[in-house]
């Protein structure tokens, strides 16, 4: 079995597409679609990499990421942030929250694949 990736995103068709091409790339893909219990999902799935949307029902991706980074277990987990907002201040917010990479929507499958591979190898 390959490495484990958890995708936290509320748009079901985006989840389905990401799940499809990452599975084909050899990843074991888990998905979750809300912010309320996102931290529990991370603990349960224990991923090697996290793909995290910013605007989620219940809690923002930044909030979740800040809490994750505060835990020693997840302090170094590679996290790829997905957001529809790509202004400098959004990038700064992502960096301040502890993001490893930042990607704006709409992205291509190749963008995600490359980012995930690079993060896994880092």
């Amino acid at each position, binding site marked *: 079995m390959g490495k484990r990736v958890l995708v936290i995103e509320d*748009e079901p*068709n*985006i989840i389905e*597409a*990401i799940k*499809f091409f990452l599975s084909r790339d050899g990843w074991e893909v888990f998905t979750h679609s809300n912010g309320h219990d996102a931290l529990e999902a991370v603990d349960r799935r224990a991923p090697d990499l996290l793909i995290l949307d910013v605007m989620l029902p219940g809690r923002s991706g930044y909030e979740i990421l800040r809490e994750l980074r505060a835990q020693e277990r997840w302090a170094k987990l590679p996290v790829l942030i997905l957001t529809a*907002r790509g202004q400098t201040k959004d990038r700064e917010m992502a960096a301040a929250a502890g993001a490893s990479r930042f990607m704006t*929507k709409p992205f*291509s499958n190749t963008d995600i694949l490359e980012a995930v591979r690079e993060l896994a190898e880092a």
Partner: protein
Amino acid sequence: MARDTLTGTRIRERRTALRLKQAELAEAAGISASYLNLIEHNRRRIGGKLLLSIARILEVEPSALVEGAEVALIAALREAAAARPDLKAELDRIDEFAGRFPGWAALLADSRKRIDALERTVETLTDRLTHDPHLAASLHDMLSTVTSIRSTAGILAETGEIEPEWRDRFHRNINEDARRLAESSTALVRYLDSADSEANLTSPQEEVEAFLEENAYHFPVLEEGSRTVDEIVDGSASLTMAASRDAMRRYLSRYARDVTRIPPAPLRDFVAAQGFDPAALAQAFDAPLGSALHRLATLQAEAGLGPLGLVICDASGTLLFRKPLDEFPLPRFGAACALWPLFTALTRPAQPIYRLVEQSAREARRFETFSVAEPTGGMRFGDVARIEAVMLFRPSFDSQRAGQTGQAPVPIGVSCRICARTGCSARREPSVLAEGL
């Protein structure tokens, strides 16, 4: 160089634009080429029949050769120069520039106007994206759908072999997302259309002012107590942005507070008995003078008080509320004239200030102004007091009051940019109006 001494330059510009040789024009006009050369270099004055003849050959009105650039063009160039004072454009040679290079001058003026319009649009759009949660959510939703379509289409186009059940599922997803995108984009266009039907790309400030104007600055339902501030704001279809609703809540809360201090029926009785007397009104109701000025402005039409304008600013001089009069406009952007008694009041808190002022319009109009600055929002030890100044103004129908005080009118403007007063000690920036306008 004065404008009328550039006739020769304009003749040369026009001739070269028509690709006429100097000799050809001279021959057609019945003069020597060397004489035309002197004219074109502004070394000989031209007028009368010769001017008419050359204008006819060059297919322009004689006035275009004599008067040169329009006043509007000069004013637009001044405005362009005022926008970048650091570049030190040669304002003393503006006529010469516009006269010698009318095409470049028009291009520069037009570019400046376009930059202004674009900056304004960007500002408004940024404002809207920041303060309009509905718009932000709609755009986020659309981008998510586009992402989904792009990702799914990428899989179908770029993956060699896909199991039939996956392929069918992705086709269904694309179809579903495309329908969603069509619906959300149509809804967004409808929303933007409805929000912009009154004024294209309005800002929160413009929305608030349009709402106040719509209601003639008077809210009887608040005065009678039949509706609350929240009910008025939430029930308004024209306040579409969160920022404009917040601003209107703040203003209407002030309005409600002043209604409590000076209720409508006793106010009407007072005005019927004593007429327009802000100080006596404040005293009669044991209310701050600022509240009395505000109440008079809100009840002006009903109480038959004639036109009354009102402006409120905070301690930084930022205008918080504007109720203009036709002949006393208030600046929508940028700072107001520093000579307004409103700002004098800020320097003397709690001191009522009466001033007769004269606006710098073509026909100078006089206004009576009543100003006061007072603390607002309660006072606590250790806190910095929040001061707001209020100025009520009305056309000076009779100068009896001014006569009593023996005051000469204070010359004021609206804001420096659109004030043509020369030699004003309070000027902060150049005027965009040509001198003498």
